[in-house]
């Protein structure tokens, strides 16, 4: 496929720091290769801004191959942009038309405060993880190899699918309630499905949900937006599993 170049208009959220009041700024960017990724397009914008002696746009990114969970961005009203099962770094400019106006905003959630421009603080996810998203393993020298424990293939597969969550926060960003239940559901499920995780299952789900509520995330109303926008295709079944686990733990 031959490389094409398009000219685009950008409307980008600019915010000096966490306390400043932000606003949308308009930019024109010419000669954007349709082969470039969305983040490369932003690099190109920043190059243009630097040449104009202006402050470049701050945005999160790291691996740029869809696995680290760092990139975010609410693009044209959708988390990680228009396509499904991809992160923003995997989104390419061929998904946009010549002359199109593209809106770029940060994740919006009380629990994800904006640090600068498009960068948000997602440490609330870390604190939920720290509240129970782990297994305690004796490392005194006689640690049992995980592979020595027989696990049903179907359970192993579902645990792996849940563990595919990269914690990017697209679920929270696209949920009309700003709920983190797909993330927490995935993190609860990846352990609840495995024998190693069953030992601490009771406290894990109670503590993770408590931390989730304390962080100020909203309540799930099962709209299903998270599942559609999740770059890793985490299923709503994980939320149902968390609901079961929590009910079980609460009643025992």
């Amino acid at each position: 496929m031959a490389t094409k170049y398009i000219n685009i208009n950008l409307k980008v959220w600019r915010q000096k720091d966490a306390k400043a009041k932000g606003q949308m700024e308009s930019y024109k960017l010419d000669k954007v290769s349709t082969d470039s990724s969305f983040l490369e397009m932003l690099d190109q914008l920043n190059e243009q801004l630097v040449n104009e002696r202006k402050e470049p746009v701050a945005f999160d990114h790291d691996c740029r191959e869809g696995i680290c969970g760092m990139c975010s961005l609410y693009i044209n009203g959708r988390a990680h942009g228009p396509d499904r099962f991809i992160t923003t770094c995997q989104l390419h400019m061929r998904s946009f038309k010549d002359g199109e106006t593209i809106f770029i905003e940060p994740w919006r959630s009380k629990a994800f405060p904006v640090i600068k421009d498009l960068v948000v603080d997602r440490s609330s996810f870390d604190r939920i993880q720290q509240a129970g998203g782990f297994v305690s393993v004796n490392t005194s020298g006689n640690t049992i190899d995980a592979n020595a424990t027989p696990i049903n293939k179907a359970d192993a597969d579902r645990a792996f699918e849940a563990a595919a969550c990269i914690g990017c926060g697209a679920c929270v960003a696209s949920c009309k309630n700003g709920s983190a239940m797909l993330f927490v559901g995935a993190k609860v499920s990846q352990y609840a499905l495995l024998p190693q995780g069953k030992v601490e299952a009771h406290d894990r789900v109670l503590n993770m949900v408590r931390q989730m509520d304390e962080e100020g995330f909203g309540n799930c109303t099962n709209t299903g937006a998270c599942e559609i926008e999740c770059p890793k295709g985490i299923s709503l079944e994980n939320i149902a599993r968390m609901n079961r686990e929590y009910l079980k733990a609460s009643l025992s």
Partner: protein
Amino acid sequence: MANSAFLKSSLAKKYWMALTGLFLCLFLIGHLLGNLQLLSTEKYGAALRFNQYAHFMTTNPAVKVLSWLTYISILFHAIDGFWLTVQNRKARPVGYVKNSPSANTTWASRNMALLGSLILLFIVTHMASFWGRMHFDKNMPLYKVEIEAMGQKQSFYQLVNGQFVPVEQVAMSLVEAREKHMPKYIHNKTELFDTNAKIQIGELYKDLYKITVDFFKQPTYGLLYVILYVISMAVLAFHLSHGLASSFQSIGMSHPKYSPFIDKFGLVFSIVVSVLFAILPVYIYFVL
């Protein structure tokens, strides 16, 4: 309960929302089955059956317990829903400039609070029109039938035990019965008393059927009420189209094998129940 905060946590609120919602769906089935008696085409069948249903619903002790559960469920569902909505709004203090929610969600699922508020408004006005009159109206009409025998029309009260009592034998109070020398009188709205013995000899039906038919056949506002009722049932259909299947998800019932069935069942239930409810005012207005 450990440290679960079983009433306050986000998940507990979901459970209560789901359980009260599911219970209210059961209530809808009962209410609908009763209302469908209005469609009976037997002579006097619709009126008698509907009044029998109303009598059963207001006097049976088991139903009393269920009706209190229903009132509590409606209140709890509404208050919990309101509280959840307030919290959810707070979870996103700054909104998006451009948002495309229709790309990933249905309209009904995003507007449950609005739909629920409209349903609550409907329930309040609906209860004022029927439930309130049934329970508190002192001038609630009693169920009568006109029977034609030998070319003469005569009005009878039909009692709960099936007996017929001529209307002219029954006074509206003991005082009236004594003044006019009538053998029977009505005490405490529906109890039929013998004037001489002053003991109860029967129980009359309140004529909720007449109230219902008259309500939708009012000359000025009847058609407006019919339209508002049909719209309300459409609102109910949208609310249930998301709510029913959603409540199973909330209590943790999700499985690739039976979830597709639950989703379809929720949709079918919401449409069938709402359409059947909506048919009744239309039937009363245009057919009766």
